[in-house]
């Protein structure tokens, strides 16, 4: 089919996720959508798949303006989606997953698995998607699971396939296999919308490339363009936010990770032998697209995830596999990635949250009893010092804006005597004012001679804060550079391309 998106705009409150986006996908074309996290790709896809309604703009299929009120309708009109988080029932077989909702039946409402399996084998052969229909999905490697998602879409007679970051979870061999599949699907006349941030793949398989940044289309490109050109379009050439930083005079080593290996929830290796050290008075910014192991790395440092091998040392103390309590007591400050889940208790007051992880000893407690006076004084002081906008220290933290919630966490961590600070995506979801504020706090902390590791998928932030920049890709550090390095070079490191630019 020929798909055209004209002027699609979607807002969430004051935040514009998609701003007048226009894209055309021809039949048989592999059209790549390139962009960083937060660029607006997922929102756009949800609009296309009927999960969200656009505020402005229209969708035209084969020239006809169409509206979807739910994903069922999108499916029926021939749009198929291969989700980033698979919509597969893990304990079902391939056949059961593929036919779900569209089952062929025989007498007594029985599912006709024979017909289903035949259909699957037919489609498999036609599009080179070999998969055993009787295999249980959760036992399949991720690459095959993805094939099942594709099969599912094809079995619904999809003419346009949307693949949302499909290679995020694949091994290199599986990626090659997927590329081959995409090519054969395109040859068969299907249109493919391929969303990714990985330049190698873009160049390997796309016919047309559209680059999205901050909700807008910033340009189109050809696969023959150089990687540097693509990277620069994707990350932009803007000068980073200026934050005053005093001269960089690092002290001794204060934090060290050596050969760390950590597994994720599925048991796969997420952190694959990471080593880095940070000195006092230095901010090490860890850049990289989300999903390359940063989350697991921070969780391991904070004591929330077991370390399989390797070590984490804080000021010479081994805190590998220590409990969160021990890690906090050793002087580590932690600003978690998911502030509402791991950092705050939404139903408690600002004052309580400000002492959430502070040891239950003096000054906030005395012989088992909390010293409310000290807690409140502390709260008053921090609210003033850190400019937390709240009507009172007793107000529930749930009624604060995202920015102020983050300020509570920042205030809490930075007001303790810290040996080292670890912050993960510290300004996610914040407005510009709050971002500036948080950055200032981090730099003040560093100016005072303390060290910090800040994990961020926002390059602006990485450049603004980092005295040194480490880039993480696929569970490894792909390079450690200084902030004078060009954005394109960092972009390349983030997307798996190493051009040899690695210096301490």
């Amino acid at each position, binding site marked *: 089919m020929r798909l055209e998106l004209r002027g699609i705009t979607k807002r969430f409150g004051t935040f514009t996720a998609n701003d007048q986006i226009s894209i055309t996908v021809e039949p048989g074309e592999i059209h790549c959508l390139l962009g960083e996290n937060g660029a607006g790709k997922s929102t756009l896809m949800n609009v296309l798949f009927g999960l969200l309604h656009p505020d402005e703009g229209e969708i035209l299929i084969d020239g006809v303006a169409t509206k979807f009120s739910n994903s069922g309708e999108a499916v029926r009109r021939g749009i198929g989606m291969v989700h980033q988080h698979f919509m597969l029932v893990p304990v079902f077989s391939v056949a059961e997953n593929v036919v779900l909702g569209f089952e062929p039946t025989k007498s007594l409402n029985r599912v006709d698995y024979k017909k289903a399996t035949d259909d699957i084998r037919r489609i498999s052969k036609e599009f080179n998607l070999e998969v055993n229909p009787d295999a249980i999905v959760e036992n399949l490697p991720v690459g095959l699971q993805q094939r099942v998602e594709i099969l599912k879409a094809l079995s619904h007679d999809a003419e346009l396939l949307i693949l949302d970051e499909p290679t995020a979870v694949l091994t290199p061999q599986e990626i090659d296999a997927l590329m081959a599949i995409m090519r054969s699907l395109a040859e068969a006349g299907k249109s493919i919308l391929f969303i990714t941030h990985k330049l190698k793949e873009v160049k390997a398989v796309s016919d047309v490339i559209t680059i999205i940044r901050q909700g807008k289309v910033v340009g189109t490109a050809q696969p023959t363009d150089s990687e540097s050109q693509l990277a620069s379009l994707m990350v932009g050439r803007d000068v980073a936010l200026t934050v005053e930083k005093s001269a960089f005079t690092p002290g001794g080593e204060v934090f060290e990770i050596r050969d760390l290996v950590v597994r994720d929830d599925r048991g796969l290796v997420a952190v694959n032998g990471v080593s880095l050290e940070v000195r006092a008075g230095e901010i090490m910014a860890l850049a990289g697209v989300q999903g390359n192991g940063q989350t697991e790395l921070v969780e391991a440092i904070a004591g*929330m995830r077991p370390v399989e091998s390797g070590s984490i040392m804080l000021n010479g103390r081994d805190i590998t596999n220590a409990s969160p309590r021990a890690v906090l007591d050793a002087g580590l400050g932690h600003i978690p990635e998911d502030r509402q889940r791991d950092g705050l*208790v939404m*139903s*408690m007051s600002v004052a309580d949250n400000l002492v959430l992880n502070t040891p239950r000893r003096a000054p906030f407690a005395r012989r088992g009893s*909390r010293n409310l006076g000290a807690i409140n004084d502390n709260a008053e002081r921090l609210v003033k010092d850190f400019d937390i906008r709240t009507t009172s220290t007793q107000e529930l933290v749930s009624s604060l804006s995202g920015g102020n919630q983050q300020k509570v966490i920042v205030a809490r961590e930075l007001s303790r005597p810290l040996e080292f600070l670890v912050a993960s995506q510290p300004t996610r979801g914040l407005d510009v004012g709050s971002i500036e504020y948080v950055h200032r706090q981090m730099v003040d902390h560093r100016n005072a001679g303390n060290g910090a590791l800040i994990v961020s998928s926002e390059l602006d932030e990485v450049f603004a804060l980092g005295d040194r920049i480490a880039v993480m890709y696929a569970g490894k550090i792909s390079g450690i550079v200084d902030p004078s390095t060009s954005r394109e070079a960092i972009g390349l490191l983030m997307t798996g391309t190493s051009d040899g630019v690695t210096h301490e």
Partner: protein
Amino acid sequence: MSEVVTTGHRASLWARWTSKSPIVVTFFALILGLLVGAIIIITTTPAVLDAWRAMFHSWGAPGHALKVTFDNVGAAYRTMFTGSVINPSSFGHSLTTGKGWSNTFTPISETLTYAAPLLIASIGVGIAFQTGIFNIGANGQAVLGGIAGAVVGSMLHMPTVLHLPLTLLAGIAGGMLAGSVPGLLKAFTGAHEVIVTIMWNYVMYAFLLFVVLSTPFQQPGQQNDISRTMDPSAQLAPLFGTSSGLRVNYGIFVAIAVVAFAWWFLERSSLGFDFRVTGANPSAAKASGINSRVVLILVFLVSGGLAGLAGIVQAASTTHFIDGGFLIGNAGIGFTAITVALLGRNKPIGIVWASLLFAALGVGGRAMQASTGIPLDLAAVIQSAIVLFVATPVLVKELFRLRAAPTSSLQLAAKGWGS
């Protein structure tokens, strides 16, 4: 959970008043619960049914049927009230003649007598709920506490100043012991506490029968399932002396102490803070250094201990012995405690009012049974109905078109089996 917001018609005063607090929702839930009770009375009282069946016999028949209905329901609820709070006519009589005060105050005294142990148990359940734990085993813990306390109270002999505290402590210990089973199992095997506690309740009931029928604990010379009577030195004596006929006793001081403890524990103590954080957000609790396993075991000890204390307070202040039917049944104190805790939003102050209300319903139910013959199980049904309505605040609001009355966190995080 989407809020139901009405626009327009019920504006200004009514809307402002009804959006004040969860107390409003509770009040309306109470009305609905009483309505449910009324319907049950109507459909099961022969006189009322007959009157309605004869509805079409004459022009005056529907009116008569209504009158009979109101008479019966009214009588039931009136005796509930006079039996649990105060009888205005006897109050008036006492005022004018200066006599019969003990008659006048008996209803309130009874309510307070039953409220005390109920309050203690409900506080225990409420603390558990605030930590995210369903302690459905409060009844079994109360039973074991009652047994332990009654054993100490009847088989050891010493002066009151030692005996009474020791008896109460034994009750707490018994409850802790009973609570430790689900606690340890959950901490070390992850077993979901709901089934374990419910099963353990039945184990405790069997143990109770065993103890009062097959051991030296049985009352000497008795074939029935009655235990030895507790020494007077271990009993919670009536405040106004036995001759006053008023049973309200020192148990209420124990209850007050428990409320004070609970308030201090939850609001002021570090451990209580850890409990609350664990209940509100287990992830953040872990990230902030709280040791969930320790919290888990402790919460069952605290909650169980309080339930055990409730059990012994009940025994020591009323019957002074325990029998085979002690606390058993669906309306046992441990189950009523769950409904009270839910009604009181798991907070000590709310639980105080809720336990007074439910104790009144229970005591009133007995009075109602005595005078109208309506079985007192009806009171338990009304209690459950009230709680169901409270558990669905949105439903109540929809029924009464209340404007977005704030509902504090009654919905616990819904969970399935074994984490």
